[in-house]
């Protein structure tokens, strides 16, 4: 028996994903409608944002392009959760109907097996839009382009994505404890809309809340500072990569704990 290491899991993951994408592409109507849905959401978000800036020219001394950058970054940070962790949205139904049990008999990590089942292509449109907005904002902000800057942005993007996935892990895992956790997911997901705004509009209490309780500030604001405020990095930006790994791991443990508890109730 070979050891089940990262390589083993990656091999399985790519096997499943490549097959899944192949078969998904044969359902083109669904793909097009879903992608349109995602683009609609983002265009609407953009309109909201544009209307605000039609009436006011800055928010807390953040100008239009800086806020736009945050907006683009948040879209990019949401994409991996959308693409790779989408099965979390179905968790409630599986648990409620008892079908969740069918995931429990494979000799691999339960969370991995569950999450790997679905790869959601429609997030790609969102990602492209995010990249487009960031490039547009970057040009208008007249920042220089350096390899180090781009590398730092990529690292921060991964960190931000991990935090976002972690938040949704925990929100989804609530269904192991309560009946109608759909509300928890919807509610938590709504907050991500507010990741787009700079954290310094809040008072101290809520800054702490959004940094450490529901850490949406780590999804956009802190990671973005690596570009927007590169000369004076906040401490939380520096620790963001470590924080994100830790946070994701904790969310994974909570999810797994919930799963074992769920089986214990015999429903």
């Amino acid at each position: 028996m070979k050891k089940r290491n990262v390589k083993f899991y990656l091999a399985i993951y790519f096997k499943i994903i490549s097959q899944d994408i192949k078969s998904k592409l044969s359902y083109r109507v669904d793909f097009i409608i879903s992608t349109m849905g995602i683009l609609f959401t983002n265009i609407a978000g953009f309109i909201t944002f544009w209307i605000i800036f039609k009436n006011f020219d800055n928010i807390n001394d953040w100008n239009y392009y800086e806020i736009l950058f945050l907006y683009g970054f948040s879209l990019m940070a949401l994409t991996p959760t959308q693409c790779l962790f989408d099965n979390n949205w179905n968790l409630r139904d599986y648990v409620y109907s008892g079908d969740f049990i069918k995931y429990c008999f494979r000799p691999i990590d339960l969370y991995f097996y569950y999450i790997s089942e679905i790869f959601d292509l429609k997030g790609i449109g969102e990602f492209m839009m995010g990249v487009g907005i960031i490039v547009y904002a970057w040009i208008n902000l007249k920042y220089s382009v350096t390899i180090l800057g781009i590398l730092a942005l990529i690292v921060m993007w991964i960190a931000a994505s991990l935090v976002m996935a972690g938040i949704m892990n925990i929100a989804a895992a609530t269904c192991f404890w309560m009946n109608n956790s759909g509300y928890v997911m919807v509610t938590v997901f709504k907050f991500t809309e507010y990741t787009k705004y700079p954290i310094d509009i809040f008072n101290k209490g809520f800054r702490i809340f959004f940094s450490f309780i529901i850490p949406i500030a780590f999804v956009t604001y802190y990671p973005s500072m690596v570009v927007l405020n590169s000369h004076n990095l906040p401490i939380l930006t520096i620790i963001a990569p470590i924080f994100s790994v830790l946070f994701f791991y904790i969310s994974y443990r909570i999810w797994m704990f919930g799963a074992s508890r769920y089986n214990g109730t015999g429903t």
Partner: protein
Amino acid sequence: MKKYLVLIRTGIMDKLNFRVSLIVTFVGNIIYLITIYFLWKAIYLSSGKETVNGMTFNDTMIYLVLATALFNMMEIFLVWYMGNQVRSGKIVFDLIKPIKFGLYMFFGQLGEVVVNFVVIFLPTVVIVYIVTGGGILAGKNILLFFVAMILAFIINYCINMLVAALCLFTESSWGINIMKEVIVSVLSGKSIPLAFFPNSIKSIVELLPFQAVYNTPLTMLINNNLSVENYVKMFGMQILWLMVLLCGAVWFWKYSLRRVTINGG
């Protein structure tokens, strides 16, 4: 009539069974409202102006708080439900019940909305009233608001029913639902008061049915300088859209069912 009362009762009981969801929705809303409070406070502070587009910071907050409460009260998951039923094939069981599907869903939803009104909307109005020291008028406008709210609920239901019928044709209910939600939430004035919209857009949005869902009842509740002419115009708009959408929804539902049954689903 009795069977409809039973449906409403079932809706109420379903809702009560989910105490956690009530608590979560409540806490979620509080945090959400705090977020928009800070956001708009920052916006107003940065602008250095007291009034923008005829609305002070207080006006904007009252509007947004009540819009959120109204939205939560009237939120129905019809499209989502339809999508699931169609995908699992369980829709057949709904269709063979000896009661029209549209009415069946309507009264079930009504039950939930009644609970939502008591646990979400009413407390919000009372709190806003106390906090703002009478920021909401209490007079004949309450009555008018009620009428507008009921019309708004039916309009909202018809919009949902129209979109839900689309689910009979495609399994992509997710995409359809999210598009509907986005359109309603932007064009109804739920996210940003219509007063902030640029004039050209505003004049178009005012002709659409979506603003009749949130903007109309809220304006009646909050604004104290409405002329009789304003009321007539707003109610007229609501009733007009209600009739159009009701006929549209009934027709489209029948049409879709026929199309789908002919094709054998």
